[in-house]
């Protein structure tokens, strides 16, 4: 009895008799289920750890009575809320107490998902075949032919058959214990009390999810005296909702969550934050390309590696102490197998990370050249794959155009995927954006998990550089 508050302060501020009596109607099954639950909590010695989740329905005020931690949930969400509590404190004994509208109608998805998840929570389901709180409307568990406020001439085919929750829950893999009990005989009440206690004990032992469906009386909305309501449950509900254990599997205690880690070293390792300073090779900001903020676009087809190359440039910039950004193209232009990346390298801060008018365009195919060639700023650079596009003319004579056969070179090295690294080599030679060492360091860093690919990538970079130098030398002649 100690698990009930001495005085129900939350029931109308505990005034008068309300301090000691429930808000339930005379003969309501909720009171009995409360008592058995309170006994179970007491006998198992879990009062301090218990968190009771009250639903929406007649038992919305369960928190008036139980001297435990209490949370009141939105309609149908008690099981989801219970899981939130259990994950926050795996030691807590979390009990989701719900009626039929809450559990079997509006909260069906949460009910089934929590059951299938199987984490140890205890669900007490009060099935009285009617909506109590809202005034006697049809419940998901109302019987065929049962007349209610919203099925005045009896539940019929158009309303569907009543939900048999214990059977449904027992059919899932998650739960370890499912039983349906009733309250209308002394023997049945003893069983109900035992089932509720077992469902709490299974949680206490970390064995899993337990569900007890209690066939209960709602004399008020059945419009019957309490003893007639007991008879009604026996005569009409029992054939549809047969009592008994629906599932009871032996499971070793399994539920344990380790205490969350707040250890500095574990954290920095987990987020891969390095405490080692990056080597720097730049003498200063490459202001010859733009005094403050160099904007670039890398454009190709998916698989050309434009995004990876773009990332490498941004990483190289940041390693050198500048600001760098990379943004994969977004919106309609990113559809249809194309892959565009905008990159910025700024002395202090990248203002606008988009590159509508880039200083440098790296084009991996002809459509990209066609689309972006004319957006390149005066005095800028176009570096393109001359294996797939030829005789590219700049939109403005001040633009330097460099053709390097990315694809052919990469094929020659035996790995087509390195053509983006060939392109980076060409970028270095054509623009002198960063020293070679900066790029090489960024490539090594990116490949540190696949170290055996480093020589090939360095070769590709060198080949791109050589080809660009050759192209520029030939053009000068």
């Amino acid at each position, binding site marked *: *009895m100690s698990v009930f508050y*001495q*005085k129900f302060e939350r029931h109308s501020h505990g005034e008068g*008799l309300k301090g*000691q009596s*429930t808000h*339930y109607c005379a*003969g*309501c099954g909720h*009171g009995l289920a409360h008592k058995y639950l309170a006994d179970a909590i007491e006998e198992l010695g879990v*009062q*301090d*750890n218990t*968190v009771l989740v*009250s639903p929406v329905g007649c038992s*919305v005020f369960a928190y008036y*009575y139980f001297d435990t*931690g*209490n*949370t009141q949930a939105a309609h149908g*969400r008690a099981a*989801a*809320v219970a*899981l*939130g*509590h259990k*994950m*926050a*404190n795996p030691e807590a004994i979390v009990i989701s107490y719900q009626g039929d509208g809450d559990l079997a109608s509006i909260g069906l*998805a*949460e009910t089934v*998902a929590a059951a299938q998840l199987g984490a140890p929570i205890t669900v007490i389901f009060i099935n009285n075949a009617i909506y109590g709180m809202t005034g006697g409307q049809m419940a998901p568990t109302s019987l065929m032919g049962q007349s209610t406020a919203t099925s005045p001439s009896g539940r019929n085919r158009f309303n569907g058959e009543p939900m048999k929750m214990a059977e449904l829950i027992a059919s899932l893999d998650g739960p370890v214990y499912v039983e349906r009990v009733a309250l209308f005989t*002394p023997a049945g*009440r003893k069983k109900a009390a035992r089932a509720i206690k077992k469902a709490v004990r299974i949680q206490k032992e970390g064995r899993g999810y337990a569900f007890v469906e209690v066939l209960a009386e709602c004399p008020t909305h059945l419009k019957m005296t309490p003893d007639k309501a007991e008879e009604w449950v026996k005569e009409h509900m029992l054939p549809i909702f047969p009592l008994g254990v629906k599932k009871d599997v032996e499971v070793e205690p399994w539920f344990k*969550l380790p205490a*969350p880690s*707040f250890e*500095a070293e*574990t*954290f*920095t390792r*987990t*987020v*891969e*934050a390095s*405490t080692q*300073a*990056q080597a720097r090779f730049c003498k200063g900001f490459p202001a010859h390309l733009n005094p403050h903020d160099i904007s670039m676009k890398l454009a190709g087809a998916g698989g050309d590696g434009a995004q990876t190359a773009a990332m490498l440039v*941004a*990483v190289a910039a*940041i390693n050198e102490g500048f*600001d760098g950004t*990379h*943004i994969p193209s*977004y919106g309609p232009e990113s559809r249809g197998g194309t892959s565009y990346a905008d990159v910025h390298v700024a002395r202090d801060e*990248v*203002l*606008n*990370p*988009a590159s509508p008018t880039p200083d440098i365009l790296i084009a991996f195919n002809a459509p990209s050249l066609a689309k972006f060639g004319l957006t390149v700023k005066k005095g800028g650079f176009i570096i393109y794959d001359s294996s797939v596009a030829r005789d590219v003319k700049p939109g403005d004579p001040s633009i330097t155009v460099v053709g390097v056969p990315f694809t052919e070179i990469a094929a020659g090295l035996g790995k087509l995927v390195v053509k983006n690294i060939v392109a980076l080599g060409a970028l270095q030679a054509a623009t002198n954006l960063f020293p070679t060492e900066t790029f090489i360091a960024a490539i090594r860093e990116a490949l540190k998990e696949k170290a055996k690919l480093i020589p090939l990538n360095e070769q590709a970079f060198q080949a791109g550089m050589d080809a660009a130098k050759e192209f520029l030398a030939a053009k000068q002649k």
Partner: protein
Amino acid sequence: MPSVEEKPKPFLVPEYCKGCGRCVNVCTKGCIAFADEINPLTGIVPIVLDLEKCTGCGLCIDACPEPYGLRAMEQGETYELQDPARLFGVRPDAAPAPVDIPARKVPLPKTQPLIIKGNYAAAVGALLAGCRHFYGYPITPSTEGAELMAKLLPKLNGVFLQAVSEVATVNHMYGTGGAGIGSLTFTSGPGFSLMLEGISYMVGSEVPGVFVNVMRGGPGLGNIAPEQSDVKLACRGLGHGHSHCITLMPSTPQEMLDYAILAFELSFKYRNPVVLLADGYLGQMTGKVQLPDYMVKPGIPGWAVYGDQGHRGNLISSIHLQETDLEKFNAHLEAKYQSMKVEARAESYLTEDAEVLLVACNTPARAAKGAVKSLRDQGIQAGLFRPITMWPFPVRQLEALLPRIRRIVVVEANAGGQIMDELRLNMSQAGVEKLPPLTYVRRFGGMLPQQTEIVDHVNSILGK
């Protein structure tokens, strides 16, 4: 062997009897019958006990639904209504006073900046803020945040739970937050809509939690490209009732991290959810992100329903049945919202001598910053005012700039001008009625306002 006489017989304070009769039928000894008259205190006909033949079988006690109805008789009990504390003895195990376990800071070594995308940065920020619980339902363009949490949380002994829906997500957060533990979700417009009921419950129960909404194009399914069309929801539509949350609008990956940390701090400071509004473009943008020199190790607040002895007496609930109680609670909420106004933050860029003021948030603010730069190169005194909190709106910060401003241009990525609405409404509520002429640059449907469009617009309104 105990004799039957030793078993306790039932006892009833008649005032606690509801007269349901459940006990009457179970007594085979005929000890229980309804009284002859109504009890004047309850207006109910209670039962009366005649225990001469009683065997103490206890069946009647098991059948009584009332906690303080039929009980086993103890020595010296009488039938008079009296204080149960005296009647049943003072309980030795009444809940102790709630315990407040404070959060503390764990120093971190100096590290090189991370180079990560905005969505990742917000996730790492949450981890730094001490968040070890993530709930979410995958939705583009926010999924990378969830994916990173799924990868990292197990390494930090945290909990990653993919919920059955956004409705379940927000209710997992309600449970975890109610336990006094911070949790995070990533979502986008349609998912955010589904969470609103739960956010209203969190506000009404004063439960913390952080929602990162990486906004995409709407309404309906819309598309997955960036928009800023949930400003209205975050500032004016957080479910039913008088609900508001601090709403932060970062514009760089660094800010995604910084404001995720701030969001957790504010969420606990005010016992209220916090919304971080990003856009799809910012979520995808990679940049330099410096970690702070500390990480938060959260405590357990005194008000939490943690599930331990120190917090047993607590209740998380948004119910205030009596009108006067709910009125009082809403007044408390309103006072809390007012007190949040000190959290209003904004960045002003080149505003000291500005005459044309661009107002923008998130990624459009970066295009606007670029536009300020190129307008200045043309000799136009442009500046940028970037609200970092959209709710509370940085009214005072904007007001301070107004005397010199001749034009305000709101740059945003939604069709109706949700940021402009916030600006007008907040300034008007604060009594600032006179604003310079407002015009706007808007793109939407997944298109973002571009730097060149902003520059052209400013030139056109200046007649250049």
